[in-house]
């Protein structure tokens, strides 16, 4: 009888111990990563949606629940834009160097009623800010952002007939080397492109090197080969100039200032002259390439944050 009693007590202790171990309290904080990557969005009206990514080590954290966010904005040292959070979408996951899995959440916004006819709001080293239920706040650095306000280009003077980006291999990484664009005037009168802006920080169209194409190049062609200059690199300084056309297909080379940036989606802002007057033709931000799974491998800065649960 005594043996049975001892056996039962030991059994309870063992089972209790195992249960306690299994019921280990979760970590007291949630870890968050933001990766600084340059981005640009064409905002056609106050319903236009755009998104920024945050990476969380807990997919059920309070930051992933819409109702817990009471206010959102994005700002730099000088300007602030109020945002309306419309959706939080889990789009994937990454694994950090230390082996921790971080789920990627895309925070989808509109400009919360702010609508500007024409203009660009440039935020340098932008910070995404949230106010949460309970009075806590969160600030996350997301990199340089351009909000380009305007309508997609009205093809009254010209239109584009073909559009894709060329990415060349630079040390095993895909680097934006240029844009291939087919252009066609409506009247047969020459149009002069004065400037092409992708609105991505440090990524500049070298319009002076624009090349008319007989054949369309592959999406992974190299700019040096296309331009016939084996010494040319994507880090060369841009060459200024204009491009005049009636109808044709062109390669618009791109250079990166300082270092290669992982650029997949961007608008195209074309300033041109027709019949002695200046106009603007905007192409909505388009994903020319699948998103970069690991922008940090391009040297983009990772910021680490921690919030109490």
């Amino acid at each position, binding site marked *: 009888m005594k043996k049975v009693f001892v056996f039962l007590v030991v059994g309870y202790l063992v089972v209790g111990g195992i249960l306690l171990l299994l019921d280990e309290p979760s970590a007291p904080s949630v870890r968050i990563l933001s990766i600084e990557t340059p981005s640009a969005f064409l905002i056609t009206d106050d319903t236009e949606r755009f998104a920024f990514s945050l990476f969380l080590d807990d997919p059920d954290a309070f930051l992933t629940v819409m109702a817990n966010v009471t206010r959102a904005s994005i700002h730099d040292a000088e300007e602030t834009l109020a945002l309306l959070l419309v959706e939080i979408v889990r789009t994937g996951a990454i694994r950090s160097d230390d082996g921790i899995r971080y789920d990627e959440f*895309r925070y989808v916004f509109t400009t919360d009623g702010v609508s500007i006819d024409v203009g660009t709001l440039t935020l340098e080293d932008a910070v995404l800010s949230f106010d949460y239920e309970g009075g806590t706040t969160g600030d996350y650095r997301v990199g340089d952002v351009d909000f380009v306000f305007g309508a997609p280009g*009205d*093809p009254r003077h010209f*239109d584009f007939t073909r*559009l894709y980006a060329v990415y060349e291999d630079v040390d095993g990484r*895909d680097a934006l080397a240029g844009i291939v664009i087919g252009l066609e005037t409506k009247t047969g009168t020459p149009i002069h492109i004065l400037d092409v802006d992708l609105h991505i920080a440090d990524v500049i169209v070298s319009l002076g090197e624009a090349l008319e194409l007989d054949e369309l190049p592959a*999406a992974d062609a190299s700019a040096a080969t296309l331009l016939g200059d084996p010494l040319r690199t994507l880090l060369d300084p841009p060459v200024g100039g204009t491009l005049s056309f009636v109808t044709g297909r062109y390669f618009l080379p791109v250079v990166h200032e300082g270092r290669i940036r992982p650029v997949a989606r961007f608008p195209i802002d074309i300033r041109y002259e027709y019949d002695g007057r200046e106009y603007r033709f905007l*192409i909505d931000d388009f994903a020319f*390439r699948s998103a*970069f799974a690991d922008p940090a491998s391009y040297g983009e800065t990772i910021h680490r944050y921690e919030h109490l649960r």
Partner: protein
Amino acid sequence: MKKGLIVAFLSVLVLSLSLTVSADEYQTYQEIVFVEEDERLLQDVSTEDFAAALASLGGKKMFGWKLAVLTKKQEVEFLSETKLKIFNNGYSTIKHDITLSTKVETKFQISSTGSLGTTISGDIKKFKGSIDGTIKTEIGYTRTETASELYEFKIIVDPGTYVTIVMKGRGIVSNGVARNYFCWIKIIEGGWETFTVTTEYYEIVKERIR
């Protein structure tokens, strides 16, 4: 008598399994070209070469899988299906709002032939049975856990014009054959193939409606 029943049962099992054929999205791509000329997709392997690959698996074994690799981690370039077409048959310019999706690297696809099957667990497609792990070990596969994202794109389309958005890309292909034995009896036999999309490129084309 008992042995005969077992053999009959296993024969029925093999027959029913051999009807399983599985395909995946990449098999709808308009064009897939290997960077190395001699490599082929499983569907382009001749009957003779397929039989030779099966023969290379050697003699029977008591239990489990035998596997041979025909193509190992070979780079391909592909032209996918047209993702979208917008026609403006009217007489005035239209502004069109398009919802597009962009995949995040990397997207893993698989397919099989013969009685070798595939299954879906959650959003992950796998080969049926323990062969899944064997194949992934053999080709050195690591899965990047990523998914797709939706976004909006606005475009102006002139009358008498249509817009298409096409996808091109690069990927990695591995394929081979496999056979499974139970008590020295061949239970499953077929081809397997993995297709990992590493990068997708998107292109807009505007053309006149003829």
